[in-house]
């Protein structure tokens, strides 16, 4: 399909186009019409415009069937990418719903514009199988998120977080670009599948290994895997809470999805071996190392946190470790679909859970701060929100029948089954399960404050808007329902993967 009309292109890129137009609309509505209006009204209008655009995009994604692979993977649209895009836009919508009562900035239009642009970047990321467009999309996402992190101009922490995120991100992007250029030099192509074909038979060329590690560095930064995680705790803590929620959910989803494609498609053939005591160089042992380090450091460091946002950041690092198991499960081409399904289920449910957790933190923050002490007696100050918090925390810990449990279970089963003959990656699964047992401790610490401890003398009941209540209740319901009936999400995922021929 080399000759294509602009109409076809619009058909393929409809959702992205809608969101870009919405971002402009949000900007103009706010700058043009609402400049003198009171702030709450401007938030409402901006949020309304954004939500409308998001809903239109979801409608488009679910109703317009399109499948194409343009210009050697520059733009790939298939049921799987459409599904992941629906997830991304849904996460944007939840983030918007949680932003409506925000007070951290007067630049409402810019804020929503950046949220939308970041989402558009993520959607392009999902839709490309070409290292050049992947890099461009990565940069669009990253730059929007850097600004969002630093958006609270009244807070020094926010500025520091933004700068730190930006500097680390810039360096990581440079490494990625260097790695990608080496790959291009070795393989003579920027298309992932062609790279794999051209690299076949090169074995473990040292230059290839250097390139591989550099690429992994860039993505490792995006997914906050140890040792590229240093920005995460500061960014999560300093960023305005809804922005942190998007960084922790949507950005994770898109990055993991494309990371999986780069590894499983682009580096197919140089997996190496990750089985215990049979290690051989390739991307599997590299990612296995990152996974072990992330799970270990994330879970142990989370125990020591007193700020719940930082706790969530370290928990996100640990979860990145678990999710890497999904990538490893894709190392066996025959079982790739299983690994992909497990990964998509996990990142989706994890994203929903994290947005919810940040939503609760945002409410608690209004009563003074996000430290564990501020959660004391929360169940008696805001019972419904506290129940939602319990659902999110227990899901993150992996307690059935919540989505976090089944996500982990499927991921671990897929990883253990990647080499069913010799249970090659079972050692990693054992490590992951052991670490998730550790994680229960710190999630329970939060819940202990909320449900067991008595409220402090001066504690006040937080103001919770109707929209927040609704959003959190919806998210908690989704976590429970998707956990109890995972087939509702797994069915569409499996169909999409099959249709996409992944």
């Amino acid at each position, binding site marked *: 399909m080399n000759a294509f009309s602009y109409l076809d292109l619009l058909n393929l890129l409809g959702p992205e186009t809608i969101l870009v137009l919405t971002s402009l609309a949000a900007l103009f509505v706010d700058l043009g019409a609402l400049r003198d209006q009171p702030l709450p009204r401007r938030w409402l209008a901006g949020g309304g415009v954004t939500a409308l655009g998001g809903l239109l995009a979801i409608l488009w994604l679910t109703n317009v069937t399109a499948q194409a692979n343009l210009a050697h993977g520059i733009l790939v649209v298939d049921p799987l990418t459409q599904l992941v895009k629906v997830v991304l836009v849904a996460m944007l919508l939840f983030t918007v719903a949680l932003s409506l009562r925000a007070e951290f900035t007067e630049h409402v239009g810019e804020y929503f514009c950046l949220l939308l642009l970041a989402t558009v970047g993520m959607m392009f990321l999902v839709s490309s199988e070409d290292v050049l467009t992947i890099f461009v999309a990565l940069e669009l996402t990253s730059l929007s998120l850097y600004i969002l992190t630093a958006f609270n101009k009244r807070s020094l922490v926010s500025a520091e977080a933004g700068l730190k995120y930006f500097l680390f991100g810039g360096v990581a992007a440079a490494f990625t670009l260097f790695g990608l250029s080496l790959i291009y030099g070795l393989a003579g192509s920027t298309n992932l599948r062609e790279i794999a074909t051209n690299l076949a038979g090169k074995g473990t060329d040292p230059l290839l290994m250097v390139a591989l590690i550099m690429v992994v560095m860039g993505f490792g930064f995006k997914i906050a895997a140890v040792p590229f995680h240093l920005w995460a705790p500061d960014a999560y803590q300093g960023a305005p809470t809804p922005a942190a929620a998007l960084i922790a959910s949507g950005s994770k989803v898109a990055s993991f999805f494309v990371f999986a494609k780069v590894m499983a498609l682009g580096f197919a053939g140089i997996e190496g071996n990750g089985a215990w005591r049979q290690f051989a160089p390739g991307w599997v042992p590299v990612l296995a190392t990152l996974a072990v380090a992330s799970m270990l450091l994330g879970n142990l460091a989370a125990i020591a946190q007193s700020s719940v946002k930082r706790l969530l950041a370290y928990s996100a690092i640990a979860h990145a470790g678990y999710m890497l198991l999904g990538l490893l499960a894709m190392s066996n081409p025959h079982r790739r679909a299983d690994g992909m399904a497990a990964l998509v289920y996990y990142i989706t449910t994890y994203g929903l859970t994290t947005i919810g957790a940040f939503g609760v933190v945002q409410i608690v923050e209004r009563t003074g701060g996000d430290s564990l002490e501020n959660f004391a007696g929360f169940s008696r100050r805001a019972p419904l929100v506290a129940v939602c918090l319990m659902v999110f925390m227990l899901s993150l810990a992996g307690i059935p*029948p919540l989505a976090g449990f089944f996500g982990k279970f*499927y991921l671990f089963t897929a990883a253990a089954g990647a080499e069913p003959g010799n*249970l090659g990656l079972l050692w990693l699964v054992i490590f992951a399960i*052991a670490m998730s047992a550790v994680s229960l401790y710190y999630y329970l610490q939060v819940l202990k404050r909320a449900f067991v401890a008595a409220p402090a003398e001066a504690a006040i009941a937080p103001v919770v808007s109707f929209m927040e209540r609704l959003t959190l209740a919806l998210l908690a319901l989704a976590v429970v329902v998707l956990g109890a009936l995972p*087939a509702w999400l797994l069915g569409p995922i499996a169909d999409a993967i099959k249709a996409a021929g992944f």
Partner: protein
Amino acid sequence: MLAWTIYISFLGAGLLTLLPRNSAALARRLALLTALAGLAVAVAGLIRFDPAAGTRMIADVPWIPALHIRYFLAADGISVTLVLLTGLAAVAGILFSWNIEQRTKEFFAFYLALIGGVYGVFLSFDLFLLFVFYEIAIIPKYFIIAIWGSTRREYGAMKLALYSFVGSAMVLIGMIAAFVVAGHLTGHYTFDLTVLARVPFPASFQRWAFPLVFIGFGILAGLWPFHTWAPTGHVAAPTAASMLLAGVVMKLGTYGCLRVAMTLFPAGVTMWRTEIAVLAVIGIVYGAMVALVQKDFKFVIGYSSVSHMGFVLLGLVTLNQIGLDGAVLQMFSHGILAGLLFGVVGRMVYDRTHTRELADLETMNLGRALPFAAVTFVIAAVASMGLPGFSGFVAELQVLVGAWSAFPKAAIAAGVGIVIGVAYLLRAVQRAFFSDMAARPVEAAAHHPLPPISWPERIGAGLLIAASLVVGLYPQVLLNVISPGVASLLEAMRKGGAL
């Protein structure tokens, strides 16, 4: 029909959370009603159970097709017995927590959620489903102990939660490995326990998978040396939770050992049974000896649970009919008797005297102040020692007979454990209720008369004593359903390479 025990409990828990804030009396009645309904279903299930027909299917629908997981509930004689135990313990526990005034509806909501999870475990024949229910039972335990507990409650609750979670993590590893290996061997991926039991797992795999899963479940059963959560957890827990913990939650562990670890990995049992028998006997003797020197009344009962659960574990690894019958019967018997003992100590005594130190109780002349408590405790104690006529005697006797043919030395050591058991219980009875020091100058009881034993307590105690007596006097009522279940499990294990 038995599945309704699960649904009723969760429904009750859900309804309770919807009640308005200050409705303690209503919450109690609703909880009791729910538990009674569960018990009624359990009793009906036992009566209608036809042992000759084998395992009874309850529900079997596809649940998660991607992993071939099914919602598969069924019951054999062992399940039916333990479901009945859960029903009895649930009702008694609610009667013994009639005096909970703080956050009443939350308490009973957590309580019923825990009960629902327990029923679910006993009725699941799909390994994944069993595990889900098993984990559902962990979290309510944490909150019940941490919110309504006493001595070092947050520590005890966290320790219990983490121990349980580590145990279930071990089970989870074994379960995933078994799923993958079985699928690779037979080309048929499944979590169906009846199918997995027929998979010939390689011996090299069973060598490590069996101890992993067995110990994983064993942690919750109080298997020595992983028992340390039990005394602290029991002591920290509010009365009803101690009754449930000792009464049914520890049974989840032994049930898992039998239903999952032993049936899936029969060759593994053969490889490791001696080691497990040794641990079980150490648990019996060590638990009894530690109980002998406790200063806190509740710790005596806490350690006695470790000791009595040792009999269950010993009975399991005898791998003969009579030993396994005894093990299952002992699960039932200990569930009833431990519940009763904790009820007396926690509700009848501690809630009135506000102390559990044996040294303080000695001065209070409780034998006179609370005659009902004293009589109940003496009955529970002699039943627990193994007096003929009560359930404990039949159960432990069968375990000992079974052990005698499998591990004669272990049987002798366990017999010693019984003797020590008599000693610590008599010591506790004597010091708590019938001490000579009671006539000391300051008569606390005279100045502050203790509130009399209330009706819910009397009914709860009566229910448990009656259950123990019925099974003790006519054990066939349970053995008739247990034996065929055990026989078919043993048969399958023999085919799979166990002895």
